[in-house]
């Protein structure tokens, strides 16, 4: 019988991992749902977030300033990418934006190595969040609890934005029927720019948060984008609820497999994906036929 408090710690670790996956997958899913663009560079922006945070920490000496500024820097780059690269491809097939952002991710990985060096970097969590907290039945690193809290806050904020604001209403309408929204005289180009920026900013934030836990290295983006693809296939692409459920589920599955059968940890999400494909090809919350 494995140690129960170690198991509980692993469940919490799964929640942290799931939180990062959810932040990533929601942005990916949001961008896809509205623009039918699969952003292959999503992982590269996550990586960039971690690197930008490393440099901003050196300049500002403040984790809290970095936590706010780094995602904004990354989102700004996202705006430029949408405006000057992806916008040229609207109206071609969905493969073309995928290929373009794939090229972009290659260039970004090498660009980061050129700017920050090939060797991975380490970032320490801030002093206020260092150490562990006693939860009664186990000790758990404070920083990881903080990551879960930030994820929850961002998700609630995103939900309020989409459900309670006018812009959110236009975004939801645009993902249902872009042509109709255009016919009503709304400028969807600006909405697309905004949504792309939000999605990229969330990827950047996920990178900032992941840095102190997982280290900062150029290949971190490629690793997570593949996990995110699995999450959106399982959850249903374009579905935000699907991204949350599948992201948390995958986080737990990976974390618990690491505990019970470490050798299978990297393979298990693909096995889950294969089963979901057999039983429910459109994913938990997916609509069949969306950009297929």
């Amino acid at each position: 019988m494995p140690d129960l408090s170690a198991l509980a710690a692993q469940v919490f670790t799964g929640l942290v991992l799931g939180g990062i996956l959810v932040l990533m997958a929601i942005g990916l899913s949001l961008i896809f749902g509205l623009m039918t663009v699969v952003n292959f560079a999503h992982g590269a922006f996550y990586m960039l977030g971690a690197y930008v945070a490393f440099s901003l920490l050196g300049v500002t000496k403040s984790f809290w300033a970095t936590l706010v500024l780094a995602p904004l820097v990354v989102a700004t780059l996202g705006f430029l990418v949408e405006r000057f690269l992806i916008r040229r491809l609207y109206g071609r097939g969905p493969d073309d934006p995928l290929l373009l952002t794939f090229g972009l991710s290659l260039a970004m990985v090498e660009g980061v190595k050129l700017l920050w060096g090939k060797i991975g970097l380490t970032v320490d969590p801030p002093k206020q969040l260092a150490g562990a907290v006693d939860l009664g039945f186990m000790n758990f690193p404070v920083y990881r609890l903080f990551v879960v809290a930030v994820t929850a806050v961002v998700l609630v904020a995103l939900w309020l934005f989409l459900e309670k604001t006018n812009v959110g209403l236009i975004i939801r309408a645009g993902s249902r029927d872009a042509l109709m929204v255009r016919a009503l005289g709304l400028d969807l180009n600006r909405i697309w720019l905004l949504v792309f920026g939000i999605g990229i900013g969330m990827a950047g934030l996920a990178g900032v948060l992941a840095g102190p836990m997982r280290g900062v290295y150029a290949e971190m983006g490629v690793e997570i984008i593949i996990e995110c693809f699995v999450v959106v296939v399982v959850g249903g692409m374009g579905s935000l609820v699907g991204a949350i459920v599948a992201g948390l589920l995958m986080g737990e599955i990976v974390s618990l497999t690491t505990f019970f059968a470490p050798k299978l940890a990297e393979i298990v999400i693909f096995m889950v994906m294969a089963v979901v494909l057999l039983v429910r090809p459109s994913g938990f919350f997916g609509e069949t036929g969306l950009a297929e």
Partner: protein
Amino acid sequence: MPRGAVGRVADWVAAHPIPSFVVFFALFPFLVPYKSLATQILVFGLFALGFNLLYGYTGLLSFGHAAYYGLGAYGTGLALAKLKVASLWPALGLGLATAVVGGALAGFFCLRRRGIYFAMLTLAFSQMLYFVAFHAADLTGGDDGLRGIPLHPLTLPGLSISLRNPIAFYYFAYVLVVLAVAGLKRILDSPFGAVLGAIRENSDRAVACGYDINRVKLLSFVFSALFTGLAGALDALRLTVVPVESLYYSTSAQVVIMTLLGGAGTFFGPFVGAATFLVLEDRLSIFTESWQLVIGVIFMAFVLFLPKGIWGTLTGGLHGR
């Protein structure tokens, strides 16, 4: 619009694909700076040809072709290094069989979704295989790669040729690649090939015409895995080692880049693209470690401004696609 001599030569070549291929690649080793580059271009051109059958001709974008390339390489490599198969042909056969079985299995799963989901699924399956090979170190050598692959002489009735000479190996690969190219031409010229084009242009209409498109797509996937597996098997013999990275995402990425640079859906695009990529890599890596940055930017420029690729642009898109 009158086009230059280059365009006319390209048109003639596109109209006479097989003789052009046979003649050009017979002379090819004497046109490049070193022989090993010629063999590499030939093998990666074949890899891109397999990818192009699925993407360029059937319209299915795979981001996981490293899987079938790696399966072909490991199949042949394991037959020679672990099963101690004493001859080249059964080892090659085992590599092809591994790639075909892997392709059929992955195709069955990945074809349950269409469009961009297909791209994500193929990527996921190839990564799964990579991790399996990485952890099964007893069999595959894991991170160190599969080493100790003996290069047996090529045996034909009444003939035995050592392949250790780079030129001999080039022409051995050349004969197999010519057969593959002729095989692809035969597939594309058949009624089956016409259905592939119908699926690429409008799959709903192909269904309405009464074609069982899932069966056709799966068959196209398996043929693609066969060509790709042959490329992997040849590369295992060329290097006498199978690095575990042959299954990694970066290998899939390479073949996507090569095919799009050359021209997806064109007959010679894959070989033009493989040559462009490998020569660029060879030249750029002399000047800078960040050659992939340059390749990434060039690739983006192609997606934006030259979606037909080099060969597709030269032939004006009249042939093939």
